[in-house]
């Protein structure tokens, strides 16, 4: 009798061995009522905690935009701060639903690691931050330098490629946290700090004497940063990807958090009306509410607002739009049509 019970239990256990979330992330998240979002462990402009303990930055705002689309409430996000080393494992294991942590879109990550990049929230490139005292004007003069890097980033590879292809030598010192590498630069443990340029501007702000340091002109790589989801779940992938496009499209059509109500009432532009769910219901096909895009813009703003507030003119970083301007303003941000 007892034997039979054990055998039955084991058989049941074996039958249960189906994967936990193949195509089920959206249902799981909607049922849970909270979005689990992986962000950076402290990077000004992208995601860091302000004085009152809230996460602020482009990456954090993107999480909020997804939550607004899902639940109509941008506050329903649980942020998980992750180091560069931890981030992909956290996504793969299901600890988080979406990773919005200045991660570079590369082919090896897209095809071999079970992840899919949903788009690009920030076009970046790798650069160098040095102390002015060294008198270095160009990255070509860095032969023999000691370079601080973050462990497990694509910058580690780019750095090696750049020095090798230019016939230069370097000594790498690899840290896990961006604060540690900034401190190492400040104390003189390394001559140069290398990272994505946006990060370098952010890091420089954290130093005791930001004006003593300069970002070199060279950009040695393409670093398109964007949100990541697990591969093999197109339903969830679509929600994340089109949240990003809704942000970009809203700026393109001139919809802001301030005028979205006005637009919803008076606009006759068919594209605006479709985006805001007045003349079409794309939400239904994504298992979302009709006004999902309206909620995004109302609660988080459009892409341009998100950019200026966190890294652009409205922030201490003062980064130019550059590649991140709309496609018709000389940048690369472009949304497919809402049709």
């Amino acid at each position, binding site marked *: 009798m007892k034997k039979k019970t054990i055998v039955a239990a084991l058989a049941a256990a074996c039958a249960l061995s189906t994967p936990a979330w193949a195509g089920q992330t959206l249902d799981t998240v909607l049922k849970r009522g909270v979005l689990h979002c992986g962000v950076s462990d402290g990077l000004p402009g992208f995601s860091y905690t302000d004085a009152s303990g809230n996460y602020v930055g482009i990456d954090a705002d993107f999480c909020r935009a997804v939550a607004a689309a899902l639940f109509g409430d941008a506050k329903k996000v649980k942020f998980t701060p992750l180091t560069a080393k931890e981030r992909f494992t956290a996504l793969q294991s299901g600890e988080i639903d979406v990773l919005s942590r200045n991660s570079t879109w590369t082919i090896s990550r897209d095809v071999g690691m079970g992840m899919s990049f949903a788009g690009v929230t920030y076009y970046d490139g790798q650069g160098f931050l040095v102390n002015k005292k060294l008198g270095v004007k160009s990255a070509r003069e860095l032969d023999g330098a000691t370079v601080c890097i973050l*462990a497990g980033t694509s910058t580690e590879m780019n750095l090696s490629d750049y020095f090798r292809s230019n016939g230069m030598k370097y000594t790498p010192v690899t840290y896990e946290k961006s604060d540690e590498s900034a401190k190492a630069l400040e104390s003189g443990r390394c001559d140069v700090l290398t990272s994505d340029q946006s990060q370098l501007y952010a890091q420089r702000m954290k130093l005791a004497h930001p004006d003593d340091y300069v970002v070199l002109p060279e950009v040695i790589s393409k670093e398109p940063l964007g949100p990541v989801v697990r591969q093999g779940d197109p339903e969830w992938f679509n929600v994340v990807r089109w949240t990003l496009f809704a942000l970009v499209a809203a700026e393109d059509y001139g919809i802001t958090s301030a005028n979205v109500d006005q637009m919803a009432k008076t606009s006759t532009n068919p594209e605006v009306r479709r985006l805001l769910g007045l003349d079409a219901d794309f939400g239904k096909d994504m298992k979302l509410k009709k006004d999902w895009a309206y909620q995004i813009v109302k609660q988080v703003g459009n892409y341009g607002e998100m950019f200026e507030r966190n890294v652009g003119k409205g922030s201490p970083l003062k980064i130019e739009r550059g590649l991140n301007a709309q496609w018709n303003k000389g940048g690369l941000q472009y949304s497919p049509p809402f049709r």
Partner: protein
Amino acid sequence: MRRWLYDPKIRALAAQILTILAIGLFAGWIVHNTVHNLTVRGIASGFGFLHNPAGFGILQTLIDYRETDTFARVFVIGLLNTLLVAALGIVFATVLGFLVGIGRLAENALIRGLSALYVETFRNVPPLLQIFFWYFAVLRAMPSPRQSHEFLGAFFLNIRGLYVPRPIPAEGFVPTLLALGIALVSAFALSRWARRRQERTGEPFPTGRATLLLLIGLPLAARLIFGAPFTWELPQLQGFNFRGGWVLLPELVALTLALSLYTAAFIAETVRSGIQSVPRGQIEAAIALGLTPRQRLRLIVLPQAMRVIIPPLTSQYLNLTKNSSLGAAIGYPDLVGLFAGTVLNQTGQAIETIAMTMAVYLLISLSISLVMNWYNRRMALVER
């Protein structure tokens, strides 16, 4: 049938077989489930990635390494770095631990007090904090390369590390090495002979002085006849950094210091308890025989104390080795930081890299246990 059902032997056997079966099935289910999930989610699996080129630089490599080498080589480099810091830590912690442990029982109140202070301080501060202290508070205060502390024009100390001259084998290298080998072998033979003779006749022989003479005299003679064994490559300031010579990195120094000092505090307590476990009568008997305090310690107390000391000492060695993985926090490229960190992230193969890393720590720990158990058996009291 009924008889079998109530036979306690058969029932016990059946229960054991069922338990093993259940565990086996459970393990099989976990493996199957993992493989299935990995395939469904399109995550690459298997150990093929080890043959791919790594493509990143490493701070400290004990063997030759280029960025185009494979992940397998990165694994070996990480392993060697871990072994290096563990070996250095074990040596320093043992020496210091024994000195402090004996010091805690010294007759001199100052030595006793200082030893107790040392133990209580270092034992009660978490090791990660101690690593941070040495790395961020002490070694970060060193000057920049251009303002290095200089000793004898050959040694340079700065924030990037301690730069020392590098020996390069010259014409006298092989003869000197040979002479040293011969000296070692003959010193060993001499001490065996001296011990036998003392056991037989009771006549002591100045083994220590003779060994010293052999070890210094023979290589020195070889050097005089065949020429210098080494030429020295001096470190020189070029551009941003010193080039040439050997460098002792601050990451390695901070980690070794912190681990040695921390573990030495525990070893000191182990040694003290071991010494105190030797019955008072033994020492009184030694005094009665007219042995000097040093002889008492070396010949009577320590050999008996070792039986008590070795098992907990083994645990301390294992702890030190495992704690060395904390080096990842200050950028020391050990197995955890390098392989379970960077390589895991570049390949995304968490299961394989973590499994390999865990297997290595298991293997290192088991090897240390094995050696220490062997030593323990040798030191155990032989009842006659």
